[in-house]
């Protein structure tokens, strides 16, 4: 016990203030400018949306247990899958890693006191609440049944649901993304600690830089699109509706011009988390640092040029289809580069299998399948058969859940001791990671086969011969559901009963581990000066490895 207090230099037992204890009134939270408190508020809000989206997902899988449309009415089913998509994409996947982990860690990782624009950061949270609140209000009023893609002319003319309200919610929420992206870019450019050069930044920061570019450049387009949709619905000026002189394909172009890059808003931060996890839990500098960093930028840039691959069967010219197919194949290469470099990072490492690393390894397997099936869908001749089927559903869940959600969970576990000062239960963490992996595969792998069979998306009822695979899928979903509920329980439990985490429980070299857990409001007691490269695990980067070994020995004894 003596050894331990010596190592942690009193942080653990002297009641030194941290960001959590710095004010406990509601106002001290709602009016805070501390990026860490804002991140915690995001964590709570995003989790609420995730749970709601999950309930919708459960309803979808239960309905599809039987071929007939029998659990809920078809009209209800249409709203359920629409709202599952809207909540998960706009209010969970897009903000999750950037607004929670990015917000919390980005200033810590580059040695800054806060984000460059703290008030803007709080504003982006309020905007997120406003957009989310409006959307929830619309869902409670009666919901929306257009599919999350809002394709015209159904969404402008034919749907009698609350399209305008939800559109307004998404429109407002977009500004939250734009402000967060702007804030990150300014912070990375101006707030790096002395010695924190661009190529000493953790890859998590690079990934967020790339993500922020996409947020700033892409999100305005969806705002414009939603605005045009509202104008057409309200005033009947022909923009997208052919019966009044508009063009429905124009909507698809504008929608996907944002929504394809939005896929990269969702996955790039996840890739950043995985780079951290793989490198840190192998205790080895990531292989091909520059290639991983620049492949993030390449993905962000090329991501803007492939939107037409969502429209291969929509009646666009076959030559446009070929160009978009070509560019889609090109964008696969930077993802492949990341995959190879992560694998090579393991080579001759010192690999430990704590819960975050289990998620990272799971990510590699699932993202591999998600990425490769993206090639199936990029091969135009094949995608004519596969598009709008469950193959697509399976593919984007492999990328979004198998990629982004897994990375998010891995990241939450990894940085939990930093965020809360407590360790989660490693035993339950591993069980839940494995349940998520098994349940996820059982849910979505059968859907590839269903898709090749031709089962269309967004069907409340389906032919009887497809039932067996749907039963597998629903069974898997229940395992996945249990795996996802468990962290909510044991993480909350750890807040009170968890073992106190030291400042650097993993003995990793990132700057975020060189301050106390949880960090003080101003992040660092003294401004750090960086003299080491990224991912240097030896004592020369200032890690007290011998001390950590003594601490462990004392803990065991």
């Amino acid at each position, binding site marked *: 016990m003596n050894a331990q207090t010596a190592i942690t230099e009193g942080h653990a037992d002297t009641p030194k203030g941290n960001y959590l204890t710095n004010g406990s009134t509601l106002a001290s939270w709602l009016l805070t400018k501390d990026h860490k408190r804002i991140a915690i508020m995001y964590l709570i809000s995003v989790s609420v949306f995730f749970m709601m989206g999950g309930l919708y997902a459960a309803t979808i899988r239960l309905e599809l247990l039987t071929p007939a*449309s029998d659990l809920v009415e*078809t009209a209800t089913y*249409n709203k359920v899958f629409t709202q599952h998509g809207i909540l998960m994409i706009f209010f969970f996947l897009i903000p999750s890693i950037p607004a929670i982990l990015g917000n919390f860690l980005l200033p810590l990782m580059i040695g800054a006191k806060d984000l460059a624009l703290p008030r803007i950061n709080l504003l982006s949270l309020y905007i997120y609440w406003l957009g989310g609140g409006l959307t929830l209000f619309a869902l409670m009023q009666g919901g929306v*049944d*257009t599919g999350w893609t809002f*394709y015209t*002319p*159904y969404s402008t*003319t034919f*749907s009698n649901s609350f399209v305008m309200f939800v559109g307004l919610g998404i429109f407002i929420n977009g500004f939250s993304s734009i402000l967060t992206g702007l804030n990150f870019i300014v912070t990375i450019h101006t707030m790096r600690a002395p010695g924190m050069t661009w190529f000493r930044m953790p890859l998590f920061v690079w990934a967020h830089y790339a993500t922020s570019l996409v947020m700033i450049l892409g999100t305005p387009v969806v705002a414009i699109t939603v605005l045009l949709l509202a104008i057409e619905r309200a005033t009947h000026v022909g923009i997208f509706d*052919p019966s009044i002189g508009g063009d*429905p394909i124009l909507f698809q172009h504008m929608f996907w011009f944002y929504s394809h890059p939005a896929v990269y808003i969702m996955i790039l931060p996840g890739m950043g988390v995985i780079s951290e996890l793989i490198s840190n839990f*192998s*205790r*080895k*500098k990531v292989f*091909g*640092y520059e290639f991983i960093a620049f492949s993030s930028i390449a993905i962000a840039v090329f991501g803007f040029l492939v939107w037409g691959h969502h429209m291969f*069967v*929509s*009646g666009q010219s*076959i030559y446009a*289809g*070929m160009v978009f197919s070509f560019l889609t*194949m090109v964008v*696969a*290469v930077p993802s492949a*580069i990341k995959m*190879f*470099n992560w*694998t090579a990072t*393991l080579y*001759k*490492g*010192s*690999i430990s299998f704590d819960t975050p690393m289990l998620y990272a390894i799971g990510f*590699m397997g699932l993202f591999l399948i998600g990425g*490769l099936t993206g*090639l*199936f869908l*990029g*091969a*135009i*001749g*094949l*995608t*004519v*058969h596969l598009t*709008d089927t469950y193959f697509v559903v399976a593919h984007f869940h492999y990328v979004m859940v198998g990629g982004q959600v897994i990375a998010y969970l891995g990241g939450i576990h990894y940085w939990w001791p930093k965020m809360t000062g407590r360790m989660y239960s490693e035993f339950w963490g591993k069980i839940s990671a494995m349940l998520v992996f098994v349940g996820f595969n059982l849910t979505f792998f059968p859907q590839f086969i269903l898709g*090749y*069979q*031709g089962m*269309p998306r967004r*069907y409340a*009822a389906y032919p009887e011969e497809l039932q*067996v695979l749907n039963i597998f899928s629903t069974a898997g979903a229940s395992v996945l559901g249990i795996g996802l509920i468990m962290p909510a329980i044991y993480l909350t439990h750890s807040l009170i009963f968890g073992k106190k985490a030291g400042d650097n429980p993993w003995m990793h070299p990132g700057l975020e581990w060189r301050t106390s857990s949880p960090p003080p409001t101003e992040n660092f007691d003294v401004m750090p000066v960086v003299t080491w490269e990224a991912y240097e*695990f*030896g004592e020369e980067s200032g890690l007290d*490895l011998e001390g950590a070994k003594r601490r*462990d020995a004392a803990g065991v004894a």
Partner: protein
Amino acid sequence: MQNTTWVPLFPDQASTFAWQVDALYFYLIAVSVAFTIPIVVAIFFFALKYRETEKYATPEEMHGSMLLETVWSIIPFVISMTIFIGGALVYFNQYTPPEDAMEVYVVGKQWMWKAQHQTGQREINELHVPVGRKVKLTMTTEDVLHDFSIPAFRTKADVVPGRYTYMWFEATKPGKYHLYCAEYCGLNHSGMVGWIYVMEQRDFDNWLSGSVSGQTPVEMGKDLFTNKLGCASCHAGGPAQRGAKLEGIYNHDVKLVGGATVKADEQYIRNSILNPSSQVVEGFQPIMPTFKGQVTEEQLNALVAYIKSLSPNAAASTAAMPATPAANANTPAANKPAAKPAANANK
């Protein structure tokens, strides 16, 4: 017919490009396996071999390798290009309807498919086609987007309001195959399904002669043109007419006011009926009223078919005429395909 294994893995191969799509699929599965196995084996091998033996060890640093990076950038790029080329070839084939195909008009509508053969037969949520003949579908919709999807033929195409889209296929195996609407279209989207019946030519001829045929599209169009809509009062031909001459224009270039030239295809004819003043032929006044809202999509199809029939040399497509009409004329229902389910029976 759907195969009846416990877990069906593949839909039937029932069109000329089914095997091409399947070949592409197998190629991609092979590529995926070829990438997945080495990576997964490497991950497991490294994870076991280099697992932590000493806490907080500091393995030797490695900075990456330009050679490796180059190799594993170029190999995926080259492979992805082979996939691109394969996909593009199949795609070109799928979406280039042949000249000599038998034409069928399809109109999507919340929530049913209406088809009309050149010989006048109409079907709802069903489509009967002969085996071994190229069939081209000219499609549009009365309301929202739909998508005509036939998994057994490995093809589909969106149906877009306000324009024509096309798909084609040549069925290779008689049978009954699923037809789905694959683009979300509202409440009863999952009920907008039906069957494609592929029949031997002889059975198809019997079906044609046995099913009640109304007017053919050309006849119906002519009726609309001369009587119901009164187009003929301006467009009947002759030098003194107020409307442009329509004989022989199909698939020919037309000079417009303002100097532009446009090819008089189906889209142009359709647009000239609905939006007459947008593309006025040189030498005429923009005096034609719009017929938007006055004609249904099926009537439009009929008008277009009639106007096309005024250009006998350009209209290459053949109607779905029975091969030997006389021989079958008196055997109405003898060879009709068995157990034809009622329209909409399949949910």
